[in-house]
């Protein structure tokens, strides 16, 4: 170890786990450093809805006891991890950033959370989000906004904005989020961190509050591609989860091929996407630079076409609200959730509990879903949207006959200001590059590319791949990171927050 104090800002997850295993520092020291960083930084960022200091120190003490007893430690031993607040963790509330679930105590622990804990991770808290994951800015949280660590007057993206901001601010080494239409990749892009939406079914959703059941997928954020790979190893290590019927067995090692060369491999580029209306010049330039970095390493760019993804937003805003309406019907104010007091009938109690428990966007999505599923309307929108889904999936299948991965933007532009996108349907366009992948069920990753030439804010590229080729996505993401990140070692903590607390004693 160096003699200068070591900061969690500069340590990767692997370095933290290795340091704990070697006795360079204890898991308890790491937990205290992370809690110190949160205490010093989060008043500015407000990434967390709840900091679980007691759970963190307990988990860290258990890790230290295991080491003292000579037991083997997990691959994430002592690594500070934050969880989106739609994931149940016993000992914390799970609010989905909604008044509806303001006091909801997690009755059990989600499989994805448990697997991170089983790998030795230290749970530092639950992160802010758009209410029930409806949004792209975290502004629809019922409790408070979250600031972008790179510019406190701007949003972190969403819906997993708190998880992305916590990692970008150095308040956690890894965070988990969920992605239904871009809710991991878009905030990762706006906050300058790596965010992976794995293939649908790769990570268990048991214990994660459902939004769109045919679209939702859990995935990790990190400042380095390697950290995301380590988190994926932990998430899939237990194999298929019998408690989530959509869970699939996945090849377990995301690290083995991380540094494989990309020489001779083919990267698809979709010309229509690179010319899409709303895509800013600096993001387009950054994505082009990522393509050149891959070419410099011997990859070949090939043009591919995805003709039907222009209709992806329309298909999504049929399918997702219908599934949301169905899933959120469970919030009737009886078994859990806000209950309107003093009502004479159940119907009245239900409709007022829902009226006062849900925020505006949650009501909008459910109203839209209720309408689209109603008799007569179903045949006009819902069934055709599922047919368009077939066409989009077929477009991808054809494209992947010609290339290994597809390179495109993750978000059309850099972080926007609070209140800037006040019209809900305008906000929906934030996910124009991410949504089609949820519709097809494929994996995608947002890779940070430093700061944009015009805005000085984080820009990124997205890599998409065929189903269950998520390890391949990380190989290409790592190749971009090697070429374009400082020292080739990943994204930095946002400079306004770096160095405030977080030092290992």
């Amino acid at each position, binding site marked *: 170890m160096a003699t200068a104090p070591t900061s969690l800002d500069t340590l990767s997850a692997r370095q933290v786990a290795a340091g704990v295993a070697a006795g360079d520092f204890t898991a308890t020291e790491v937990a205290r450093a992370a809690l110190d960083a949160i205490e010093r930084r989060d008043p500015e960022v407000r990434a967390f809805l709840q900091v679980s200091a007691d759970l963190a120190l307990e988990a860290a003490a258990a890790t230290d006891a295991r080491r003292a007893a000579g037991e083997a430690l997990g691959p994430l031993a002592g690594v500070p991890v934050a969880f989106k607040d739609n994931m149940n963790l016993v000992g914390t509330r799970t609010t989905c950033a909604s008044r509806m679930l303001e006091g909801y105590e997690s009755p059990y622990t989600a499989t994805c959370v448990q697997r991170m804990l089983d790998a030795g991770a230290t749970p530092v808290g639950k992160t802010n989000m758009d209410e029930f994951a409806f949004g792209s800015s975290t502004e629809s949280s019922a409790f408070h906004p979250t600031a972008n660590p790179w510019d406190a007057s701007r949003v972190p993206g969403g819906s997993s904005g708190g998880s992305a901001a916590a990692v970008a601010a150095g308040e956690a080494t890894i965070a988990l989020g969920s992605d239904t239409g871009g809710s991991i990749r878009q905030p990762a892009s706006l906050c300058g961190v790596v965010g992976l939406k794995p293939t649908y079914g790769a990570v268990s959703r048991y214990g994660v509050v459902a939004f769109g059941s045919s679209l939702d997928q859990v995935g990790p954020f990190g400042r380095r591609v390697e950290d995301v790979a380590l988190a994926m190893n932990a998430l899939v290590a237990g194999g298929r989860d*019998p408690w989530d019927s959509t869970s699939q067995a996945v090849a377990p090692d995301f690290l083995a091929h991380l540094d494989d060369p990309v020489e001779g491999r083919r990267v698809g580029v979709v010309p229509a996407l690179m010319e899409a209306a709303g895509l800013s010049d600096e993001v387009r330039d950054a994505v082009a630079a990522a393509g050149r970095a891959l070419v410099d390493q011997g990859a070949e760019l090939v043009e591919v076409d995805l003709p039907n993804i*222009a209709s992806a937003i329309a298909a999504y805003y049929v399918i997702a609200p219908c599934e949301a309406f169905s899933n959120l019907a469970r919030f009737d104010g009886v078994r859990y959730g806000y*209950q309107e007091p003093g009502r004479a*009938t159940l119907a009245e109690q239900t409709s007022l509990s829902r009226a006062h428990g*849900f925020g505006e966007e949650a009501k909008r999505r459910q109203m839209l879903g209720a309408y689209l599923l109603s008799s007569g309307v179903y045949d006009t929108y819902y069934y055709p*949207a599922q047919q368009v*889904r077939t066409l989009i999936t077929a477009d991808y299948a054809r494209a992947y006959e010609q290339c290994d991965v597809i390179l495109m933007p993750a978000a059309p532009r850099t972080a926007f200001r609070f209140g800037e996108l006040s019209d809900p349907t305008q906000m929906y366009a934030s996910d124009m590059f991410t949504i089609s992948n949820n519709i097809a069920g494929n994996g995608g990753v947002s890779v940070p590319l430093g700061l944009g030439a015009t805005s000085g804010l984080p820009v990124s590229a997205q890599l998409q791949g065929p189903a269950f080729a998520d390890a391949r996505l990380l190989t290409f993401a790592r190749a971009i990171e090697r070429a374009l990140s400082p020292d080739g070692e990943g994204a930095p903590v946002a400079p306004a927050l770096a160095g405030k607390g977080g030092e290992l004693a």
Partner: protein
Amino acid sequence: MPLTKEDVAGIADYARIALTPEELDEMTAYMNDAIDLLEPIRQYDLEGVEPTFHPIGDLSNVMAGDVPDTSVRALPLDAALRNAGSSRDRCFRVPSILGDQGGDR
């Protein structure tokens, strides 16, 4: 034809979300904007295209063994009732389902 306020009030009733008159106005404007966004779906010739309801194509009706899981996933009574707004003994407590008028509204 755009949705009217009356249409939207009917949907709110079905969705069990009580809306104030101001909310009803805003919701009606939103619903019509959102439906405009969906227009591309109506422009397709989808003759002969099979629907995809789920990204894992061959997965349907996953069944578990017909065995009660009393050891792991069954919540203890106190955990199951802890988050309820109103409970009594072993039960969730609800107001009258039928109300004074006898109907279900």
